[in-house]
């Protein structure tokens, strides 16, 4: 464990955006643009059953009637949806059976990203589904997990091998009509991860998906479906990176989580998509819909996210607290440096009795970055004794950035207790000087202070990733002061 930590530390301290390389690999792409034919083409490429094609077409038709939302506190350049390539796949025979079938160039790419596809080389206790552009490349530790009845595979395989499960749950938490980007995803999603934890099983390792955008002019539209059956437990995490390019690229994902009776799901994200350059050129548009439902009583869903990348982030990982005594948590650190913009937060919908939610959001703005917290706490009529605690803190570095808070509270039950606390602070020169005087450079001092500020959230991440997240925070703020 110690060694792994050191390695990550060394890796991540190396430079600015060190994942900005491009893998020159033969890629199969479909023509630019979106139409019913393109939807059929994608579905055909994946040999999908007709029920799934129908779902896609329904979504596409619905999406065609929608307009991009404009309520977020973001300046989004116009996106030409006919100029995007909706499917790109590294050209190779996809076989998840043997590593020998994987293009060595692809293997090297994931090695460089610190995600070796060989199981024996990987961090102990983490199973990985590696996704590049539109397809899953390799899922590790599948056999080990299968012995416990855990299904962990790419979404495409799940459609082939576990169609009943996919059919039963897909779209139940995020319906295809949910919002503009979710509808788009439902029409064109290409791959992603699928995970099912059977009744009473505690998943013995961290499950993770690593998303990589590689091809140019493409969008990535993955879908993750995670089902925790009664009394099960799983900790899941995702990481994301992309090459440095001058043009923006769209990433519109959907994540759905279902937690049955007494199940517990922890979902952690370390989002490090290419943020664009210092002048705000290029970078990923990260427009993501993530939602979990605590269906069963006493179930629990916990989101933890460290968002340092992307030119623009629009995402609100949410919990629907349907089961009595269920609880939802949202812990977030979002950094906007240079010209990055983020409008992020959560929704906690209290439906069941004695439901509890906790929101801890830490925004950090530097450079010309604009950071908004947007959160909804909604207590329905029958949710007696619902409890919510929200804390939204903003940290400003410099005087050209901005921090904004948009809390929405709707309470229909008189027994509910909802608390909201908010603070805004700046890193003081006296704090930096105090560190300097003890031998710590200004850059390191900022890292230390920012990590201290974000500690409550970082502590929620699995250990290996907490170390990575700490370093990421520091790197993404490099050059933001002085």
């Amino acid at each position, binding site marked *: 464990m110690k060694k792994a930590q050191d390695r990550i530390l060394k890796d991540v301290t190396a430079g600015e955006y060190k994942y900005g390389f491009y893998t020159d690999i033969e890629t199969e792409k479909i023509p630019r643009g979106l139409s019913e034919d393109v939807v059929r083409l994608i579905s055909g490429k994946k040999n999908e059953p007709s029920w799934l094609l129908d779902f896609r077409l329904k979504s596409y038709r619905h999406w065609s009637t929608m307009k991009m939302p404009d309520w977020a506190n973001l300046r989004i350049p116009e996106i030409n949806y006919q100029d995007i390539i909706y499917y790109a796949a590294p050209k190779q025979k996809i076989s998840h059976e043997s590593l020998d079938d994987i293009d060595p160039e692809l293997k090297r790419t994931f090695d460089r990203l610190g995600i070796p596809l060989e199981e024996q080389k990987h961090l102990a206790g983490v199973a990985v589904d590696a996704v590049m552009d539109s397809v899953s490349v390799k899922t590790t530790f599948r056999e080990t997990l299968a012995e416990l009845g855990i299904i962990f595979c790419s979404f495409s395989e799940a459609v082939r091998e576990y169609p009943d499960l996919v059919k039963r749950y897909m779209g139940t938490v995020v319906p295809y009509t949910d919002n503009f980007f979710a509808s788009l995803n439902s029409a064109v999603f290409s791959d992603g991860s699928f995970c099912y934890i059977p009744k009473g099983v505690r998943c013995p390792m961290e499950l993770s998906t690593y998303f990589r955008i590689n091809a140019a002019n493409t969008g990535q539209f993955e879908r993750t479906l995670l089902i925790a059956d009664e009394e099960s437990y799983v900790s899941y995490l995702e990481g994301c990176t992309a090459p440095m390019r001058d043009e923006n690229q769209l990433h519109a994902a959907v994540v759905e989580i279902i937690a049955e009776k007494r199940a517990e799901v922890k979902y952690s994200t370390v989002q490090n998509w290419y943020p664009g350059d210092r002048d705000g050129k290029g970078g990923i548009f990260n427009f993501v819909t993530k939602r979990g439902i605590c269906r069963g009583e006493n179930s629990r869903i916990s989101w933890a996210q460290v968002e340092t990348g992307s030119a623009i982030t629009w995402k609100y990982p949410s919990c629907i607290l349907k089961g009595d005594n269920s609880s939802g948590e949202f812990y977030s650190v979002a950094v906007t440096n240079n010209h990055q913009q983020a409008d992020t937060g959560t929704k906690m919908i209290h439906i069941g009795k004695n439901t509890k939610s906790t929101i801890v959001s830490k925004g950090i703005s530097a450079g010309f970055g604009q950071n908004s917290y947007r959160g909804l706490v909604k207590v329905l009529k029958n949710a007696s004794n619902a409890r919510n605690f929200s804390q939204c803190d903003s940290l400003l570095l410099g005087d050209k950035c901005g921090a904004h808070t948009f809390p929405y509270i709707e309470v229909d039950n008189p027994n509910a207790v909802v608390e909201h606390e908010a603070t805004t602070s700046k890193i*003081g020169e*006296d*704090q930096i*000087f*105090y*560190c*300097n*005087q*003890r*031998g*710590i*450079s*200004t850059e*390191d001092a900022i890292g*230390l*202070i920012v*990590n*201290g*500020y*974000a*500690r*409550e959230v970082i502590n929620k991440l699995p250990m290996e990733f907490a170390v990575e997240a700490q370093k990421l925070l520091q790197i993404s703020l490099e050059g933001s002061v002085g």
Partner: protein
Amino acid sequence: MLVIDNLKVNIEGKNILNGISLSVKPGEIHAIMGPNGSGKSTLAAVLAGRNFAEVTEGSVKWFGRDLLEMAPEDRSKEGIFLGFQYPIEIPGVSMVNFLKTALNEHRKHKGLEPLSASDFLKIMREKKELVEIDSKLANRSVNEGFSGGEKKKNEIFQMAMLEPKLAILDETDSGLDIDALRIVANGVNKIRRPDSSVIVITHYQRLLDYIIPDVVHVLYDGRIVKTSGKELAMELEEKGYDWIKKEVDNQV
């Protein structure tokens, strides 16, 4: 080791230091006393490299090097420590993490490997005893929620960890009760090696009962107006600063 020559400093156009000359040799203890507003804390801050004052004239040499050209963190790593009059709080950063980062920066500067966690904690335990600091404080965030006395003890604890060649203690005695004063002062004495030096900045003589100075300087109106042995501190305690002010004003 430290040679200050005719140092003139102004803050926002106002002259605060008007030509200070002072030289400190290894092993010496200097006390700088003086009424409020005489420039004592400014001198300490300028030596530590706080970037708020403009040096208009004079020089400061540290082992022959131009100290004023050095970044504050390099001054620290080269052995200058400032005990803050008002220690700063850093929420969320534990003392352990803070000091480990600082100490390893110092070690890197000397070409040494970083300390392992267990070695570091061992050193920390030893040094904690020197200043009788509560173990719990080490796990709390830097100075956050510390009482006035705890903050001052914590400064001396950090001094113990970093083993400076020169410690500048800026009114470390202010806000301390008699017991805390004794602990802090004894801590300083225990930490000090024969060749390390201390500049004690204080209003009162009582700290100097414990940390016995070789030289006492009186700072008034941005100048050192009197330099003498430790008996000067006693005299000031008895007679106050007015007689010195008069002396100086009469000369002008």
